[in-house]
């Protein structure tokens, strides 16, 4: 049995405001394996980005991780460590070194005052202890690896001199600068045009094959998930409602939300001017999280009052987990009582 590099267990992250507490991530669990991509998909407010930030320990105030474990198997073997128990200093050695991060908005994530070579080099010098000259050489090597043309010239340019696609390549180079084993990519192609998106996704796949990267890909786009992910976690209002291999999620979706979501996606394969099946209503405001199963007010397959009053536990085979009373949840609660 292959051990996961990263396991998230029962992660809870909440934001407290005057109006109340928002449970942005409310008990999320998943595993990430070497050379595989876990796609985390969901609509706005489902907690996918907060999950990523929780793993890296960069949740912004007033947000706070309130429970769970994030187990990382560090390079060089040994027992997995719980990132939530690390000191800020130790966590700094993980962030950027063992887990790389690619953000959505490449323009907002770079400093405009330093050359890209400088910015890539910063992490290399800090984590790997190289001197300025060696770091620069490594930066050029990395730019070449991610397909930036004329890397030895580009290394001295500033982010505003690059196009969106190139900036995202530089961001990937930066995330991979210290050979991390896990890469978290948060909507890496959302700000890009489709033809550029195709280039970047191709690059990520290629790098994964070469370096055996474990990738957590966070996106709202089911098309990107279908293309990139090996495993998928579908999130709704802070919970993973369905987790499983990509073929099962698309081939035999079980949770009513996954099913409805897949049906409602526009596709180039549709008949022209064909009406799409819709999901009724809209995503509730996080302060008004519905009692019971959070999806029940929009669910067309609602079972009975249980959906309105109890939160469905996780059920199903170990490779395909579902949080819905339609799928063995009832039996599971019965046994627990």
């Amino acid at each position, binding site marked *: 049995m292959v051990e996961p590099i990263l396991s998230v267990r029962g992660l809870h992250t909440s934001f407290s405001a005057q109006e109340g507490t928002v449970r942005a991530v409310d008990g999320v669990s998943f595993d990430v394996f070497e050379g595989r991509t876990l796609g985390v998909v969901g609509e706005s407010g489902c907690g996918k980005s907060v999950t990523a930030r929780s793993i890296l320990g960069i949740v912004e105030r007033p947000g706070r991780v309130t429970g769970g474990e994030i187990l990382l198997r560090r390079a060089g073997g040994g027992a997995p460590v719980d990132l939530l128990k690390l000191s800020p200093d130790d966590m700094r050695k993980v962030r950027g070194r063992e887990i790389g991060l690619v953000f959505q908005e490449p323009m907002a994530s770079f400093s405009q005052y330093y050359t890209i070579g400088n910015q890539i080099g910063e992490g290399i010098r800090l984590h790997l202890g190289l001197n300025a000259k060696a770091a620069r050489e490594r930066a050029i090597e990395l730019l070449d690896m991610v397909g930036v043309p004329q890397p030895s010239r580009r290394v001295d340019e500033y982010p505003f001199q690059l*196009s969106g696609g190139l900036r995202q390549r530089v961001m990937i180079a930066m995330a991979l600068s210290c050979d991390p084993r896990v890469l978290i990519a948060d909507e890496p192609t959302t700000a890009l045009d*489709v033809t550029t998106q195709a280039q970047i996704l191709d690059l990520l796949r290629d790098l994964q094959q070469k370096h055996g990267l474990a990738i957590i890909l966070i996106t709202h786009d089911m098309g990107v998930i279908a293309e990139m992910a090996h495993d998928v976690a579908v999130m709704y209002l802070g919970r993973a409602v369905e987790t499983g291999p990509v073929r099962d999620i*698309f081939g035999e979706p079980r949770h009513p939300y996954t099913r*409805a979501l897949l049906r*409602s*996606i526009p596709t180039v394969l*549709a008949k022209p*001017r064909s009406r*799409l099946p819709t999901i009724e209503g*809209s995503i509730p405001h996080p302060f008004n999280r519905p009692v019971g199963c959070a999806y029940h007010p929009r669910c067309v397959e609602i079972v009975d009052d249980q959906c309105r009053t109890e939160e469905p536990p996780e059920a199903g085979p170990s490779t395909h987990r579902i949080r819905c009373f339609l799928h063995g949840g009832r039996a599971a609660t019965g046994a627990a009582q």
Partner: protein
Amino acid sequence: MSETLLEVRDLKKYFPIRKGLLRRVAGQVRAVDGVSFMVRKGETLALVGESGCGKTTVSRCILRALSTTEGEINFTIGGKTVDLAKMTRAQLRPLRRHMQMVFQDPYSSLNPRMVVGDIIGEPLLINGMSNRAERRRRVLELMELVQLPAAYINRFPHAFSGGQRQRIGIARALALNPELIVADEPVSALDVSVQAQILNLLLDLQDRLRLTILFVAHDLSVVKHVADRVAVMYVGRMVEVAETEALYSRPLHPYTEALLSAAPAPVPDAISNRIILEREIADPANPPPGCAFHPRCRYATERCKQERPEMAEVEPGRYVACLRWDELSLRGIAAMT
């Protein structure tokens, strides 16, 4: 055949690049460089392309939110055809009610200090419906049309979700019974589950009110669900215009082929033979000679580098601007699955 509502002929819009202390004109950005197409009454024409292709500039020229550099915009109303490009502001004023706009971002396009009733009623007030009761009646009628509960009439925009806000924007655009609706990326800021609702609404409204829609979008999947015909732009030029089904199943321009191939489909394993375009979109301030697409085109020859292709009707209703269109057999969406 249905009559023509709008005919755009050889439209050009150049933006000057100013440099130096004296703001001398140092060059031109050819945002739109000779675009021709027409929109039939009652149809949806989708204007598609990637960022910087000029699609939004075309739509703003039609609405005369921008003046044009050259070309004609012939609009037929009440049996009379007028050239919007040549009209003065005073001449335009009575015509504006026939052309309305739906914006991309429902969060910034509604005044946060006005209640829904006033937002939808404002165009009525400006166009002389001064009777309060009459206006309220019309506003309620419009709210019903876009499926907003009448009870929301006195609420402010912040109380609404993205999808509901977009319904408010659509109701406002419909208030004056316009002939033409220009919708610039009306669903791209929405969550997928809400996107489908708005697309269906547009289809419904079009059937009921016999609306003509110019649908500006970058997403070919969304376009497939609403458009009768599709016009594809690349760096300020039109490259292909065709009926939706024909364009998707048998593209005639290599750029259309690449765009279709890059669109991620929600089907795992669908990407084995994707076309990945190399390099980046050309700069409209400095477009390459010949066909602007030639540096990225896998079928380009020496001739493509020198000779600029003009758009021609190559089959009834099919227009393409490619020197080699009749030698190539390009892949449509059927080849992708």
